[in-house]
């Protein structure tokens, strides 16, 4: 008895699965394993000292801090945008809805130079902020702006379908029981949206941590101040410090995998919550 696969009269299973596994191994799994195997050539203390130098720690702090702040802003405004797109009507709504995905489609380098031009001291937006003493381009604040841009669609696109599926009966019931709109939102609608909101937040955060293209133009890239971890990996590569670059990328990979696990759990939670609702 073959317990690996259930019987089916359809052909092509072996060919399809075989090709899938071969392709995945050659393109994804073997190259990814190279990072771990090459890092294993370092001893544990060597590895630890490479990934905890002050310059590296400063880059973690910046990468995670800016990513967290950007994901948080996207959670708040993403929820707002999703709400407005699902619940209200206004001219140009279809166009706005389509353009929300722009950060997915626009190459990151283009986003990077456009945001830098806008937020530089003489740019369209920068010229109003500079007199107020707010410098955005070439500071950590610029990194936050770039990460907010690239993370923008995640929360909107995870919350939107859940919001569309909420039955109006629930809200009507809340209203008949005497709840006002704010109470209905906080006690009835928000709890249903919350898992999707968290999923969107985690997706935006995960994307922001690895982001490179849009950030390097606007960051200024000063060591200890505005240098993100992915840039540090490139810097080490350019100095032929392969061991250092690989060790850092293993740290990034492990963090990505943990985030991927958390996102899968959140999505599972979100599905269960919306089925019950």
């Amino acid at each position, binding site marked *: 008895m073959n317990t690996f696969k259930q019987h*089916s009269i359809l052909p092509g299973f072996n060919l399809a699965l075989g090709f899938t596994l071969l392709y995945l191994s050659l393109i994804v799994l073997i190259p990814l394993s190279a990072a771990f195997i090459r890092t294993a050539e370092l001893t544990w203390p060597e590895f630890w000292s490479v990934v905890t130098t002050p310059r590296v720690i400063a880059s973690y702090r910046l990468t995670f801090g800016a990513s967290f702040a950007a994901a948080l802003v996207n959670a708040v405004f993403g929820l707002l945008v999703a709400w407005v797109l699902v619940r209200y009507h206004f001219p140009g709504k279809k166009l706005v809805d389509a353009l929300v995905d722009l950060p997915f*489609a626009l190459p990151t380098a283009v986003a990077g130079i456009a945001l830098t031009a806008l937020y530089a001291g003489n740019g369209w937006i920068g010229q109003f902020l500079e007199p107020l003493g707010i410098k955005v381009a070439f500071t950590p604040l610029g990194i936050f702006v770039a990460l907010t*841009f690239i993370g923008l669609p995640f929360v909107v696109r995870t919350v939107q379908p859940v919001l569309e599926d909420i039955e109006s009966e629930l809200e*009507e019931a809340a*209203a008949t029981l005497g709840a006002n*709109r704010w109470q209905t939102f906080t006690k009835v609608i928000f709890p249903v949206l919350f898992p999707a909101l968290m999923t969107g937040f985690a997706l935006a955060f995960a994307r922001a941590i690895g982001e490179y293209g849009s950030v390097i133009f606007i960051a200024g890239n000063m060591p200890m101040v505005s240098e993100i971890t992915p840039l540090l990996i490139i810097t080490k590569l350019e100095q032929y410090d392969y061991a250092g670059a690989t060790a850092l*990328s293993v740290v990034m990979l492990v963090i990505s995998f943990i985030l991927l696990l958390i996102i899968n759990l959140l999505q599972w939670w979100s599905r269960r919550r919306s089925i019950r609702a």
Partner: protein
Amino acid sequence: MSTITFPVTTSANKQHATQEPAWVRRSLIGLALVFLTLFLFIPLISVFYEAFKKGVDVYLAAITDPDAVSAIKLTLTVAAIAVPLNLVFGIAAAWAIAKFEFRGKNLLITLIDLPFSVSPVVSGLIYVLVFGLQGWLGPWLAEHDIKIIFAVPGIVLATIFVTVPFIARELIPLMQAQGTEEEEAAVVLGASGWQTFYHVTIPNIKWGLLYGAILCNARAMGEFGAVSVVSGHIRGSTNTMPLHVEILYNEYNFAAAFAVASLLALLALVTLALKTLIEFRNQQHQKEVTNEH
């Protein structure tokens, strides 16, 4: 008279119970639009503004410059290799996952999604570790005079890596929802595997296929981080469009950088337009199907 006003007031009250007051609605719409204007619309417009700021002549000169043309050609070539390969992979993966039940399926789906969660810089680095001079295959490749890193094959490989999931993750849920009855009927009636696939499966999934291919193509043409690590930035030879934008920008040749960038922004807009069209078509199609039942 009172019989006319009475239903009007109740319907107004009913609307109030599950809707926000008009001023709340208007301020929420306003706030959302201000946010989107600042973070989306203005950056998009500024790309085209900066590109044409110095006039159409400068713009045309920038995009017809030999280095720009060779960057455009390389970008098209890379996408022309990466997208079809990922298309074949996406179909194979979706066929195995959606049409059959086997152990480890969820793990396989997670592995397919993996490249999405890897930083672009790391995506490039892992290929340097395999094919670079210091890498596993480096010495052998050097002996046989094959160049992968700092050459076109490396760019293609890194692009394939970052775009692996696009088509597969579009097809898997689509084919799972369609089930296996139609294909089983075809096989029972005597169709061969390939006949079943061509005449039954492909017509059912063609829009999903196109949707995935469009998104895959946009990412393949726009990828920056991964390609930047493996390219070596050799002008006129291993420079893709996004890398060319970076070089021009770092040389303070802003008008030219934005001119090339505007082509990529145009690609993004075309991608979004096609994506919206397909989504609209799917909605209409779904309505027709539910009306038929």
